[in-house]
C-alpha cells in the first residue's frame, strides 16, 4: 500500500525543506506581474496563498480570496516545460584546437523538484517524454533526459477547474494520473486548510516517512478529499468532442473553415509558447568574438512563423490558414501517428492566452459540423484513411 498522511501548511513547508536538503531545486507557483508562474520557491510563503485565477478566451486575471488555500487556482501562462526543455539552452559547444575543434562537455543541469503539478501537466510531461526520451532504436535528447531523469514531482489535484479547462475530455484530470512521486489534495476544514498527501513512488514513500508534521489519514480525510474531487470532476466546464478526431481533421485538410480561423488568427504564436506539449525548437549558432569557440543554442520555435517551414526557395506554409491547420492537425491528429498519443492535454492555455480568444474546441466543432469527407472512406487500411 502506498504511504499517505495529512499535513497542513507547516507540513508542506517541512516537505519543501526536505526536498531542498535532499539536493533538489524546488520549483513551484508564484505570483509575478499579475500571473501565476513557476519559479524557485523555498517555502509556502512563496506560493500564491489565498489567490485564484479567472480565465476566459483571451482573458486572465488574478483575484484574492484570502481563503488560505495554497493551490486554489489552475494553470498560468507557463508550464514545467520551461524547466525540462528550457526556452533557451546551449545544446552543444566546442572550442578551436590546434588541428580543428572539439566538443566541450556540458555542465550538469540542476535536479528539480516540481511542486504543484496538475493532472493535465503530468500528462503533458508524459507527452514530451514520448518526444524526447529514448524509444525503440531512437536516441533520447540528452538535454531533456538529463533534466527529466531525476525530477521529483509533487502533483496537486485540481479542486476548482478553470473556465477553459477541458481535461475530462482528454482524460488527464482534474485528478492527477500516474507519473508523480506524491499527490496532494487540498481541502478546507474547520481547523483550516489541510492536504491529503499520497505517495506514488518509493521516493515519495521515503519523503512522507521523513515528515514529523504528518498525521495519519483518517477515513474522514479521505472522504472529504474524494467529495472535493468528485465535485471538481463534475464541474469541469469546457469540453471537446474527440470522436474520430484524427480522421476528421486529416480528412478535412482543404476545408474552408481553415480560412475562417485564419481571418481571426494573428499568427502571434502565443498558443505554441504557452502549450505544455509544443516541442518545436530552432537552433542558432553563435561564434565567440575571437573565433575560439562556438555554441549551438536551442530555443522554442513555432509553426506559426514563416521561417519555420523555410527551405531553399521559400516557406512551405505561407498562408495563415496553412499554419493554423498545421498546428491544430498536428496537435490533435498527426501527433498520434508520430508519437502514439494526442498532443493536447486539455489545459486550455491556448484559449486563455490567445489575444483574440480563438478556442480550438470551437474550431474542431465547426469542422465536425460541416465534415467534407466523402461518406464512404477512400481507403480502409489504417492510418492513411481519407488522406
Amino acid at each position: 500500500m502506498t504511504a499517505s498522511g495529512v499535513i497542513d501548511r507547516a507540513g508542506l513547508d517541512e516537505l519543501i525543506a526536505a526536498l531542498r536538503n535532499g539536493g533538489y531545486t524546488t520549483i513551484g507557483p508564484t505570483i509575478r506581474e499579475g500571473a501565476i508562474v513557476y519559479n524557485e520557491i523555498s517555502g509556502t510563503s512563496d506560493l500564491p496563498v489565498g489567490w485564484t485565477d479567472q480565465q476566459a478566451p483571451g482573458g486572465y486575471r488574478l483575484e484574492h480570496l484570502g481563503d488560505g488555500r495554497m493551490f486554489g487556482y489552475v494553470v498560468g501562462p507557463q508550464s514545467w516545460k520551461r524547466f525540462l526543455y528550457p526556452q533557451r539552452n546551449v545544446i552543444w559547444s566546442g572550442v578551436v584546437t590546434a588541428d580543428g575543434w572539439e566538443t566541450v562537455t556540458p555542465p550538469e543541469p540542476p535536479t528539480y523538484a516540481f511542486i504543484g503539478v496538475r493532472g493535465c501537466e503530468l500528462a503533458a510531461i508524459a507527452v514530451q517524454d514520448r518526444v524526447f526520451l529514448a524509444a525503440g532504436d531512437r536516441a533520447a535528447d540528452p538535454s531533456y533526459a538529463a533534466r527529466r531523469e531525476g525530477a521529483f514531482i509533487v502533483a496537486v489535484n485540481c479542486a476548482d477547474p478553470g473556465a477553459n479547462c477541458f481535461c475530462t475530455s482528454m482524460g488527464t484530470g482534474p485528478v492527477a494520473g500516474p507519473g508523480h512521486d506524491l499527490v496532494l489534495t487540498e481541502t478546507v476544514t474547520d481547523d483550516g486548510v489541510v492536504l491529503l498527501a499520497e505517495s506514488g513512488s518509493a521516493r515519495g514513500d521515503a519523503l512522507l516517512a521523513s515528515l514529523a508534521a504528518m498525521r495519519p489519514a483518517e477515513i474522514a480525510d479521505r472522504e472529504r478529499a474524494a467529495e472535493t474531487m468528485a465535485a471538481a470532476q463534475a464541474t469541469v466546464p469546457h469540453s471537446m468532442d474527440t470522436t474520430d478526431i484524427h480522421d476528421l481533421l486529416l480528412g478535412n485538410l482543404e476545408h474552408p473553415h481553415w480560412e475562417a480561423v485564419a481571418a481571426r488568427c494573428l499568427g502571434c504564436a502565443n498558443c505554441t509558447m504557452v502549450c505544455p506539449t509544443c516541442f518545436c525548437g530552432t537552433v542558432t549558432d553563435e561564434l565567440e568574438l575571437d573565433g575560439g569557440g562556438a555554441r549551438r543554442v536551442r530555443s522554442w520555435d513555432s509553426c506559426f512563423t514563416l521561417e519555420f517551414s523555410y527551405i531553399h526557395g521559400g516557406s512551405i506554409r505561407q498562408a495563415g490558414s496553412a499554419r493554423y491547420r498545421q498546428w491544430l492537425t498536428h496537435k490533435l491528429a498527426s501527433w498520434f501517428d508520430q508519437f502514439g498519443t494526442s498532443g493536447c492535454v486539455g489545459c486550455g492555455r491556448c484559449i486563455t492566452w490567445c489575444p483574440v480568444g480563438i478556442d480550438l474546441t470551437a474550431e474542431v466543432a465547426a469542422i465536425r459540423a460541416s465534415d467534407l469527407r466523402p461518406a464512404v472512406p477512400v481507403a480502409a487500411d489504417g492510418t492513411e484513411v481519407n488522406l
Partner: protein
Amino acid sequence: MALLAEPRTALLDPMEPVPFRVRGIRDELEDTFTLELEPPNGRFEFAPGQYTMLYSFGIGEVPISVSGDASRPSRLVQTIRGVGAVTRALRNVRPGDVVGVRGPFGTPWPVDGATGRDIVFVAGGIGLAPLRPAIYRVLERRDHYGQVVVLYGARSPRELLFAEELQDWGGRFDVTVLVTVDNADRAWYGSVGVVTKLVPRAPYEPQNASAFVCGPEIMMRFAGQELESRGVAPEQIFVSMERNMKCGVGFCGHCQFATKLVCRDGPVFPFSEVARLLTVREV
C-alpha cells in the same frame, strides 16, 4: 536516503557533431561541389538515400544527402549546392580542415528489396546526388536486376550534374540513360523538356518495375503520376521529400509533413503514402 537526487547516466548525444577531416573538394557545377570527408574512425556506414547534418563551425548546420558509394565507407562523399550561409561556408573549406557530421539519418532507397525487377531512376537537377548511391548499388549487383534506366533532367546542358558518369553509364550496354534539359543551347542535340516526358520513352516493364524519384516536389508529383499512369504500382514508386530538416532525429518539428516527420519517417517514402498530400497546398 532514497530521497537524495541520484547521479545521471551518460547518454550518446545525437545532437553532437563529430569532426571529419576534409580530404577532397571537387567543383561539379557553377554553384555545386562535392566534399570528400574522412571519418575519424576510418569508416562511415550508410544506406543509399540517407543524409547527414553537416556543420560548419560557428556558422550552422545543413541536411545533405550522401552522394558517395556505400561500398567504400572509408570516405563520406557529399554533393552540395552553395545557396546559403552554411553551404557557402562549406565551399570555402580546404583539404585538412574539419567539418562536423551528425548522422546518417533517414530512410533509404529500398533498392535491395527490388531485386529481380526493372529499375527506373528519375532525377531532376541536384536530385541526382541522393540517387547516385542507389545507382552505384544497383550497378554493383547489376545481374540482380532486369532493365536499369536512368532518366535525368537539368535546367541546361551546363547544369548536368555528374555528366561524365552519366556518359559512362549511358555507354554501357546494360543501362539506358536518357537526359533532357529545360533550356538547350546550340550545341545540344539531346531532348528538350521536363524529365517526366522521358518516362514513356524508356524501356522497362511497368508492372515489374520499381522507380526511385528525386527532384523538386512538383517534378516528383508529376513523375509519380506519369509512372503510375504507365502501370507502375504506387507502392513501387519511391520519392525523397524535402522539408526543413534541422535536427535529423524528430526533436525540432521543422520537417512536419502531415502525419510524417520527414527527417525520421523519410526522406524516402512510397509514392502511395504521399501522393494525396502532394496535391494539397502548403502541407
